[in-house]
Structure formats: C-alpha cells, structure tokens
C-alpha cells in the first residue's frame, strides 16, 4: 500500500440485524482527490461514511484509512480526519467560537493552537461577525458552515462530508460549494456523499453510484455520462396520464427511450435531430426540450427509477 492511498475498502459490509446497509463495496481514494458517493436515501452512503470516519465498526470486509485498521487504530485515524456528519451536532447553548474551541481541545491541541485555528476558520466560514453569538439562532447555512469549520479544526488530511448541503436553500448551497471548492484547491482530500447530481458534478473528480448498499458504477462525472448516457437528452411531455401510450410511435428515435410517469426521455447524441423526429412522429407533445446529459440520466439508467429528493 502506498502512502498516497488514504482510503481503501475491500468487500466492506455493514449490517444492522437482518438489514444489510452496505453490501461488500470496494473503494480506493487517493490523496488530493475529491471523491463522491452518489445515491438515493437508504443506499448505504451514510453507513459507509460512518465506518470510514472510524465511529462505526465494520461488520466484515477490509477497511484501511491512512493504511490503518479502524478497529484497532480508531483514535489514531480520527486524529487525522475531519468529520462533518449529516446532523449538525453543535451545542446550541454555546457561542460559535466556543463550539470551535471545545472541539479543538478534544484533539489535544493546545489552547493557543485552538484559538489561532478558530480565528482562521471563522474567517473561512464567513462567521467572524457572529463569533460571540449563541449557535441556536443561526440560519441552517451558517450552522452547516460552522460544522465544516469545526471539522477542519485539527487540520485534517481527509475531510468527510455527509450530505453537506441537504436541506439548505439554493443560495446557502452555493456559498458552501464555494468554500468546499477552496478546500479542494488547497489540496484537502474530500470524500462526500450527496443525492444531488449538480453537487456531485460540481465537486467530485471521481464518484461511485450506490444503490441498495452496492456500487453500481464508478468513474469521473464526465466518464460516467459518456459510458451510461448519450451526449444529449430530449424530454418530451404529453397531455396524458400514462406516457407509456406514446412509446410505440417514438420507438427507434435516438439510441434509447426511457418512459417516466410524467415524461419520455430520448437519449441521443444529436438532440435536435431527435426532436425533429419527434415532431414528425404524429404524436402531439405539450413540450419538447433538448438538453445536455447529466448525472441524473446516468442514475436513471443505472437504477431504473427517478431519484427521490
């Protein structure tokens, strides 16, 4: 194992009683990478992240973080990690800066180190003006930025972010993306989970798609789109309850058809040509939209269903 592999998992499995949350996945993440777990709720992303954070024991399989086994070297691993869980886990009775100070002390940092570090991170998280305020009245986006700042207090080599932007409004999401992008440029290795396609495309160099505890695809966003989708997609809507009735006349247009409850997707490298063929098909669509293929199309293709949330 080289020094540059920060995370390696082979056959990683997690069960809760009869329920298998993670079903034998293989993953490797290298230093400096930005890696994503993409999948719907219940795909096993958070269970995976908790094992990688060395806070949840592995049921079976092999897991190494910084080349160490979390079962025997949990504290040593956690000392080098930044962990930003799904729930904020802030003490709302304490002030913004106090939350950073107390957390830094958990890592054995000196008082001076914690103070200096907190000053920088408050600046990074754009919370300097609010540092003396209690956490409780902060907005969701501010709390999230504080949690990310807190997870950076120990200058981690690997930062884990479990659904960092879930539940935030669009503006707060963009502020957060900007902060995460800066971290990436500073060379921090990121592992994140998300069920937002745009987030994965924005932040991840490489990602895996998870479904039912298994990895169903792996690669860069671009490679995944190339491999599992076409360059463009035509979205066609009709004034009917069941879009299946138009499957016949549209057959043969583009590379592949996907019938969804509310629309028909036509995968084609030349979207405009396909849209023209739809117009000539004799059906009367309400609307026809040509767009570039996204990760969502990959996801639909791989799991055969629309993404919830």
């Amino acid at each position, binding site marked *: 194992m080289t020094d540059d592999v920060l995370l390696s998992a082979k056959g990683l499995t997690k069960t*809760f009683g009869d329920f298998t949350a993670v079903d034998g996945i293989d993953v490797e993440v290298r230093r400096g990478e930005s890696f994503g777990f993409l999948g719907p709720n219940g795909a096993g992303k958070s269970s995976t992240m908790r094992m990688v*954070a060395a*806070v*949840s*024991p592995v049921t079976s399989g092999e897991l190494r973080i*910084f080349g160490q086994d979390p079962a025997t070297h*949990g*504290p*040593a691993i*956690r*000392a*080098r*990690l930044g*962990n930003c*869980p799904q*729930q904020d*886990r*802030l*003490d*709302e*009775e*304490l002030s913004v800066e*106090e939350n950073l*100070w*107390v*957390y830094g*002390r*958990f*890592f*054995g*940092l*000196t008082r001076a*180190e914690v103070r*200096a*570090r907190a000053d*920088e991170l408050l600046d*990074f998280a754009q919370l300097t003006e609010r540092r003396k305020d209690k956490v409780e009245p902060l907005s969701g986006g501010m709390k999230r930025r504080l949690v990310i700042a807190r997870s*950076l207090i*120990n*200058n981690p*080599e690997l930062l884990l972010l479990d659904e960092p932007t879930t539940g935030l409004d669009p503006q707060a999401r963009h502020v957060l993306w900007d902060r995460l992008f800066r971290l990436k440029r*500073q060379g921090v290795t990121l592992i994140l989970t998300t069920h937002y396609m745009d987030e994965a495309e924005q932040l991840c160099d490489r990602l895996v798609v998870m479904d039912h505890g298994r990895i169903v695809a792996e690669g860069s966003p671009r490679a995944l789109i190339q491999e599992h989708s076409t360059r463009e997609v035509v979205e066609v809507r009709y004034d009917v309850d069941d879009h299946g009735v138009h499957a016949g006349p549209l057959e043969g247009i583009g590379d592949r058809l996907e019938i969804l409850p509310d629309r028909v997707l036509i995968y084609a490298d030349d979207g405009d040509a396909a849209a023209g063929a739809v117009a000539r098909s004799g059906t009367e669509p309400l609307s026809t939209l040509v767009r570039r293929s996204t990760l969502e199309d990959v996801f639909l293709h791989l799991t055969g269903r629309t993404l919830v949330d």
Partner: protein
Amino acid sequence: MSALPESPRSRLVHGERRPLSAVERTWGLVGFHLTLLRRTWRGLVVSRFLTPVLFLAAMGIGIGRLVDRSSGGVAGVPYLQYVVPGIVMASAMQWAVGESTWPVMTLIKWNQMYAAMLAAPTRVADVLRAHWVVVSFGIAWGSGVFIAIAALFGGVRSWWALLGVPIAVLTAMAFVAPLFWFAARTDNEEGFTTIFRLVITPLMLFSGTFFPVSQLPIWLQPVAWVTPLWHGTELARPAFLGDPLDPGHGAGWAIHLAVLTAYVVVGGWGAHRAFRARLEA
C-alpha cells in the same frame, strides 16, 4: 489555510499524530463541560443549592425543635445534628439524578455532542470518565459548602464530618452510573419525571434521611436496605457524629462501602456497554 506556527510536536502537523494520553483525552472533554457550566451555573446554584438549605431550616431547625422537646433528640444527639448527614446525602442523590437524566439525554439525542466527541480521538470510556469527573467535582463542591453552612447553624459536631464530602460523591455516583445506563437505553424522557416523583422523592423520605429506618413498618425496612441512599447515610452519620467507624455497628461501614462501590462498578459497566451500543452502532 495559511500555515500556523507549528512545532514539530504539534498535533496539527500532517501524518501520524502524537497519541493523546488518558489524562489529555479526559481533560479535553472536561473542557467542554466546564465551558457549558460557565453558561449554566447560575441556574444550577439556585436549584441544586437552595433546596438543601431550605430543608436544613425546615427539618433541622423547625421540626428539630419539636423533636428535641418531645424525645430529647435522636440517637442521643440533637435532631439537627442527626439530620444534617441525611440531607447531605439526599441532596447528593438529587444532584446526581439531575445530572444524569435530562443533560445526558441532551448529549445523546438532542444535540448529539457525545457523538461529536467520539468523532475525535476519544473512546466511550473517555467520554464517561470526563463527564463523571465533572459531576463528581460539582457534588464534592456542593456538599462541602453545604456542610460548612450546616456547621454555622450548629449542625456539625466533628471535623470528621469532612468525610461527608467523599461519601457524598460515592453515594451520588452510585446513582449516576446506573442512571447513565438507563438514559442510554431510553428514548422517552417523560419517564424521568416519573422517576423523580415516584422513585427519588420516596427514596429521600424513607431511606433514613429524616428518621431512623427502624421507625418504618417492618416490611418496608428491607426496601431501604437495598437503596444506595440508605447506605450512604448510614456510612456518613457516624462520621458526622465524630466516630467514622462506629464500633457499635461492627463492620457495618465496610458493608455500606461495599454496596455503594458495587452500585458504581456494576452501573459503570452497564453504562459503558449501553453507551457503546447506542453511540458506536
């Protein structure tokens, strides 16, 4: 992030980091509780401190005068001196219960700060140890100050009463450890109100705090014997009266000490198990 002035020994330097000693881990977590305490101590002083003083005045002085007039005191001493160790132990118990119910639930469930601690290089044992160190110091401080107040009112007759401080801590921990166990296994905090009213209040009233257990109906007496509060009070009372080993009761003190220790050890074992099950799933 700009470079900090890091010494090579700093735990901010990338690569394998210097492991934390048990003392460092505990101290880091204690820091959290102390920071929180800085915000909440005023309310705590009022609720945890005024109650024993009020009981001292009502029971020790008010009722004490009636008891002394009718019966010439209890066990050969004025009632006030008889009841002070009882109030010290009962308050330690109440303080213990206050610390190990809602606050623990908050850290487990509502703000999940225990989980945040475990994301750092700490283990469940450190988390429990740190919390219990803080609770123990609070109780030691509280009972010390209360004993001093009681002494001002003439409720203490011997310097041995200072042993009341460690005994109060031990008695409190005999409640804290099992209650942490319970808190980690419960999801419904309404149960706490019922515990307070239906368990803790009767314990205070019937465990030899205010009158000897021998006054109770014979069938109730064995109930008192299993409660940590009775053992704590029985252990403390001879000390407060000037004779900690109380030769009149043979090796009684050793039994009390053993029972209280057993509560702490078994409770601590269970709490550790329950915390691991709940927080390290």
